[in-house]
């Protein structure tokens, strides 16, 4: 086993979830390290996306415990998980299609004064200043990801790759401590995929923790450390990519799966 890590930001302990007799997640245990990109890999149907959904609060576990920064977050609803600082992106792009790119980013900002009914009715004198500050922040994010020219485009009109990028930008606006990325490169052209990869590495260097579900093992090898391997609802291996890649149970799982 890998040496005991002292700086785990998220721990998942013996989590179970079944769907009508199918054990989608069957006793998964792993931890994610602060300021690392933890890779979550495994054959199709291993339970990776279900486990992501459980951590994000969208799916309730039937047993097990999830702690984030030392606090129990098991079974909290999605918006409370988000308030704790865990922000997910989706396997299928989940843009707000009739909002502009900039609006998509603005929505994500937490604690907006104008988002309560009374706050909204008090009008711009009440929330306008905070809004202007948010617009500045969002424009900074757009600039960083070279999406400034798309600011006023409807999100639904973006290309598949740009939508993935939008989701990452939007997640950053929510001030996350940890990102859960479910196949962030799915359907993205190779050039843009490389750019997104570089952005993720940069964010990690700035101290952001991430868990990434990914099928493309070469990407996992480049950016993820450690790597968690799942098969049939269980975590079967945990460690560096070179380490787990040579283990027999991992090879078996991939061949069987």
């Amino acid at each position, binding site marked *: 086993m890998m040496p005991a890590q002292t700086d785990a930001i998220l721990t998942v302990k013996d989590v179970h979830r079944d769907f009508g007799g199918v054990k989608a997640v069957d006793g998964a245990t792993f931890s994610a390290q602060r300021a690392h990109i933890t890779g979550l890999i495994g054959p199709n149907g291993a339970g990776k996306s279900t486990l992501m959904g459980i951590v*994000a609060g*969208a799916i309730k576990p039937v047993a097990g415990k999830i702690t984030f920064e030392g606090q129990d977050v098991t079974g909290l*609803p*999605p*918006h409370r998980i*988000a*308030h704790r600082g865990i*922000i*997910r992106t*989706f396997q299928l792009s*989940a*843009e*707000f*299609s*009739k*909002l*502009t790119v*900039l*609006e*998509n980013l*603005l*929505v*994500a900002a*937490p604690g*907006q*004064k*104008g*988002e*309560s*009914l009374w*706050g*909204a*009715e008090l*009008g*711009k004198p009440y*929330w*306008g*200043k905070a*809004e*202007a500050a948010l*617009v*500045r922040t969002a*424009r900074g994010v757009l600039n960083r990801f070279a999406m400034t020219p798309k600011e*006023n485009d*409807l999100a639904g009109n973006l290309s598949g790759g740009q939508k993935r990028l939008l*989701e990452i930008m*939007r*997640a950053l606006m*929510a001030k996350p401590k940890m990102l859960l990325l479910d196949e962030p490169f799915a359907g993205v052209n190779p050039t843009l995929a490389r750019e997104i990869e570089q952005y993720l590495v940069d964010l990690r260097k700035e101290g952001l923790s991430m868990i990434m579900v990914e099928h493309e093992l070469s990407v996992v090898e480049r950016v993820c450390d450690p790597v968690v391997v799942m098969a049939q609802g269980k975590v079967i291996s945990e460690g560096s990519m070179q380490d787990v890649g040579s283990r027999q149970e991992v090879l078996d799982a991939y061949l069987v799966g």
Partner: protein
Amino acid sequence: MSDSMQFYISTLVIYLFIDIIGVLGLNLQFGVAGIINFAYIVFVAVGAYTAAVLSLGPDYPGNFQHYVFGASWPFPLPILAAGAVSGALSLVVGVISLRRLRSDYQAMVMLVLSLIATLIATNATGLVNGPAGLATIPQPLYDWLNLDSLTYQWVYAGWCAFLTLIIFVFVRGITNSPLGRALRAMRDNDRAAAALGKNVTAMRLMIFVVGGAIAGISGAVFVEFIQAWSPGSWLYPETFVFLAAILVGGAANNWGVMLGTLLVPVGFLEATRFLPQIFYNGFIEAMQWVCVGLLILAFLWFRPSGLIPERPGRFRAHPETPPVPAE
């Protein structure tokens, strides 16, 4: 202009403003927040009944109509009560149907609710006088103002215009704010909105109650004008007239849905009244429903965003200046 023409025009103006109030409320729920409320007319009806029984005075033995909670509250309390009762009913319905169910099932629940409500109002005769409905509902301040009935009509039209303005400003306060943006985001993808920290259940309930209260107010102002209300006045297809107004005008655009109200419930349905009777009596009226359905289909096919489409928020280029509000 002849008196009868003035009566007709002022009645149309009153209908227009009252329908605009109703459509603005449904647009908040459907256009902005994506809640498919096929029972909207029920909340209009409940508001109307509330205002009616609170204006009719206490029921007494030998009365030609029977109802509960009779009282003679002064204007404008019955209208406020109507908003409160419809809002409270929205909360109950929302808590039951909006929390767990998927949106297509929510729509079914609403449609069924609409049918059940009609059955209850028709068959529980002691509640609001059954199928005959309530009549002789006093018009607000009629005796106090002491005007001839035509002048009163115009005053009432002015009152409706004023109320419409208040509701419009209130609704615009929501749609032009970060709250409106969050609601539209929830409509486009509620899972993603939740994953970003929005409490979508609370948001959905809140806007459902706000829309329901607005429906109740529109019903109250309507019933105080026409002075009668029965289950036949609010059959479930009435909701589809409102929906048609929204889809034709432009969902999630306040100006669009107001144009849609002018065109569909007022323009389209009024204009067809002047067609000569053909085939048999009532044929034209029956065809109105067909046409409303066709109108909805045509717009969904050929112009799904309506005549005045939703306008996303635009923000000024200079970060120092305050942003331009969304519409």
